[in-house]
C-alpha cells in the first residue's frame, strides 16, 4: 500500500491533477484572504463561487468568448462584493449572517437564472472550455513540464496571482492601507484614508477572485454547469485562509498540500478497490480542512479588526 502510494507520487498525472485541483482553491482562498486582511469575513464565498461558475459559463454558452466570460464572472463577483460590503462595511451588520445570506441568495439566484435561460435542459449542455496550452520549451521538462507547464491559461493566471497579490498586499501603499484597515482602522482614518472605501474595495476585489475561482470549475476543469457543483469548496477556502495565517504564500502551500491529498485520494480510491467505501474518500477534503484549522489555530494571528465594523467617530 505504502509502495503503491509512493508510485502514484512519481507520476506526472498525479502532479498535473494536483495543479488542476489547486487552481480554483487558490483563487477562492486569495479572494477570502484579501477580504479578511481588510477586516471583513466574507462567508458569501460559496454563493459567489456558484454565481461565478454560472455567469462565466452562461456568457460562453450564449456565444461570448472565454476571456469575456472570465471578465463577466469577475464583474458579477465584484457586484456581490459591493452588496456584501454595503451591509457589513457601511451599515456595520453581522458579517456572519450577511455572508450566509449572500450565499443562500447568490446560489439560489444562480440556479434560478440557469433555469430561466435553459428551461428544458435535462442533460447539462456543454461549452468548449479553456484548452491546455503547453508553454514552449518549459513543457518538455519531464514530470514538471506536464504538471506545471501544460495547463490551461486560467491555471497560469491562478498561480501568477499568488505573487501578484503578495506584492500588492505587502509591498505597496495600497496593500498597506488594506492591511491596516484590518488591523487598526482608526490609524488609517487618521492618515486621511477612507477606511470604508478601502474595505469595500478589498471585498469587491476579493469577491471577483472568488467568482473567477468558481468560473474555473465550469470553464476549465469541466465544461458544464451542474447544481451544487461548488460542493463546499468555498468553505474549504475559508479554512485554508486560517491555515495560511492570512499570508498569500502560505495559502499557496496549504492549497497545494490540500489539492495533492485530494488528487491522491482519487487514485487511492481505485487502489483500495471495494475495500473502503468511496464515501470515506470523499469525506477526506472536509475532514482535512477541519484538521488544517485545528493545527494552525493556536499559531494563527487574526487581523486585529476582523469582524469589527468601523464607525467614524466611535471611540475604540
Amino acid at each position, binding site marked *: 500500500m505504502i509502495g503503491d502510494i509512493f508510485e502514484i507520487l512519481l507520476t506526472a498525472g498525479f502532479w498535473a491533477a494536483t495543479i488542476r485541483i489547486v487552481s480554483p482553491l487558490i483563487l477562492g482562498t486569495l479572494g477570502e484572504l484579501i477580504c479578511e486582511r481588510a477586516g471583513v469575513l466574507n462567508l458569501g464565498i460559496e454563493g459567489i463561487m456558484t454565481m461565478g461558475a454560472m455567469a462565466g459559463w452562461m456568457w460562453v454558452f450564449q456565444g461570448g468568448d472565454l476571456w469575456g466570460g472570465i471578465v463577466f464572472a469577475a464583474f458579477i463577483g465584484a457586484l456581490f462584493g459591493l452588496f456584501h460590503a454595503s451591509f457589513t462595511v457601511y451599515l456595520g451588520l453581522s458579517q456572519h449572517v450577511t455572508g450566509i445570506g449572500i450565499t443562500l441568495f447568490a446560489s439560489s439566484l444562480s440556479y434560478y437564472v440557469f433555469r430561466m435561460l435553459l*428551461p428544458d435542459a435535462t442533460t447539462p449542455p456543454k461549452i468548449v472550455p479553456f484548452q491546455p496550452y503547453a508553454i514552449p520549451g518549459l513543457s518538455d521538462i519531464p514530470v514538471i513540464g506536464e504538471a506545471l507547464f501544460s495547463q490551461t491559461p486560467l491555471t497560469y493566471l491562478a498561480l501568477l496571482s499568488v505573487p501578484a497579490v503578495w506584492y500588492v498586499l505587502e509591498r505597496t501603499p495600497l496593500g498597506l492601507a488594506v492591511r491596516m484597515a484590518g488591523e487598526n482602522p482608526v490609524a488609517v482614518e487618521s492618515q486621511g484614508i477612507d477606511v470604508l472605501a478601502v474595505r469595500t474595495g478589498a471585498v469587491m476585489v476579493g469577491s471577483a477572485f472568488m467568482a473567477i475561482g468558481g468560473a474555473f470549475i465550469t470553464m476549465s476543469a469541466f465544461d458544464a454547469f451542474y447544481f451544487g457543483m461548488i460542493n463546499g469548496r468555498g468553505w474549504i477556502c475559508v479554512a485554508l485562509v486560517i491555515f495560511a495565517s492570512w499570508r498569500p504564500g502560505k495559502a499557496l502551500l496549504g492549497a497545494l498540500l490540500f489539492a495533492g491529498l485530494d488528487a491522491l485520494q482519487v487514485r487511492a480510491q481505485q487502489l483500495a478497490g471495494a475495500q473502503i467505501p468511496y464515501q470515506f474518500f470523499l469525506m477526506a477534503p472536509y475532514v482535512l480542512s477541519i484538521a488544517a484549522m485545528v493545527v494552525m*489555530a493556536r499559531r494563527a494571528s487574526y487581523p486585529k479588526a476582523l469582524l469589527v465594523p468601523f464607525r467614524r467617530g466611535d471611540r475604540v
Partner: protein
Amino acid sequence: MRIETRQEVALWRVLLAPPLAVLAALVLGAGLIIWAGEPVLASYFALLKGSLGSSFALNETLTRSTPLIFTGLAAAVAFRAKFYNIGAEGQLYCGALAATFFGTGLISLPPVLMVPFLMLVGAMSGGAILIVPVLLKTHMKVDEVVTTLLLNFVILLLAGYLLEGPWKDPMSLGWPQAAPIIDEGIWPPLLAKGRLHLGFIFALVAALLAWALMRFTVWGYEIRAVGLNASAAGFAGIGVNATVIRTALISGGLAGLAGVSEVAGLKGYLTLDLSPGFGYAGIAVAMLAQLHPLGVILSAFFISAVYVGADAMSRSTDIPTYIADVLVGLSVLTILVSVMLTRYRIRWS
C-alpha cells in the same frame, strides 16, 4: 451618511421589522417574476393560494413548517449566544440516523416509551456532533461557522454510505433507503386527511420550552448575557465556555429532533433527500423571528408557505421553483436591515 443610535427601541418598530423585511424580499423577488414574463400580483396570489388556499394546502404548509420550527429554534438559541451553528442540516441527519439505528428493530418498546426514546437519542446525537466544533471554538478559537458547515458534508456522506451499504433496506428495490421505523416508534397523524403529524405539536412545545428557557431560567439569562458581551459576562462570573457548550448542545439537540420528526413523523424511513435544506432555511427562520423562540413558529410558517406555495406557483406559471430559495435568501438580508433600523437611524448628510 451617518448612523445614529436611537434613544429607545420602540416595540412597534420591532414588531413591524419582520413584515417589512418580507415585503422588501417580495418586492425584490418581483423583478425575477417580471423577467419570467408573469404578472407579479397574480403570481404571488398563486403562491398564497398554493400554500393557504385549501385545507390540503394549509395541512401541507403546517407539515413542512414542523422541521423548520426545530431548525429555526436551533439557530435562534445558538445565535443568541453568538454561537453561529450553521450545521443544523448535518445535525438533522444525525438525529435521523440515530432514530433509524434504534428505531428499525434494534429496540422495541411500547409507543408511550418508544416515541420519547427515539426523540431522546435523536436529540443526543444531534448535540453530540456539535461537541467537536464547540470545543474547538472554546478551547482553540477555531471559527465554528466553518467547522459546522464542513461537518454537514461529512455527515451527508456518512448517511450516503450507510444507506447504500450496511443499512440499505433489501426491500427497497435498489433505492438507497433504510428499513422503516417500527410501528411503535411512528408518530401518528393529527388529522384524518393530509400528512400533518404529532411532530407539529412537539415542535410547538419545543418552541414554548425554548422560550421559557431563554426568558425565565438562569441558563437562558447566561446565554443572552454571553451573546451580548462575552467578556462582560465572564467578568460578572458567568462561565462563558460552559454556557457556549451548553447552548451548542441544546441547539444541536433541537436540530436533531427535526431529523427524528421527518423520519418517524413524516416519511417513516430514512432517505438521502430527507431534507431539502431545512437546516439552512432554519437560519432564515431564526433571523426573521429576531431570534425569539415564539416568533420562530410564525416565521417557520411563513418560510414553509413560501416553499409549498412556490411549488404550486411554478406548476401553473413559467417561474422556476428556485424562486422560493431566492426569497428565503433575500429575507435573511432584508431582515438584517429592518432590524437594524429598529435600533439605529440613518441620517443622510
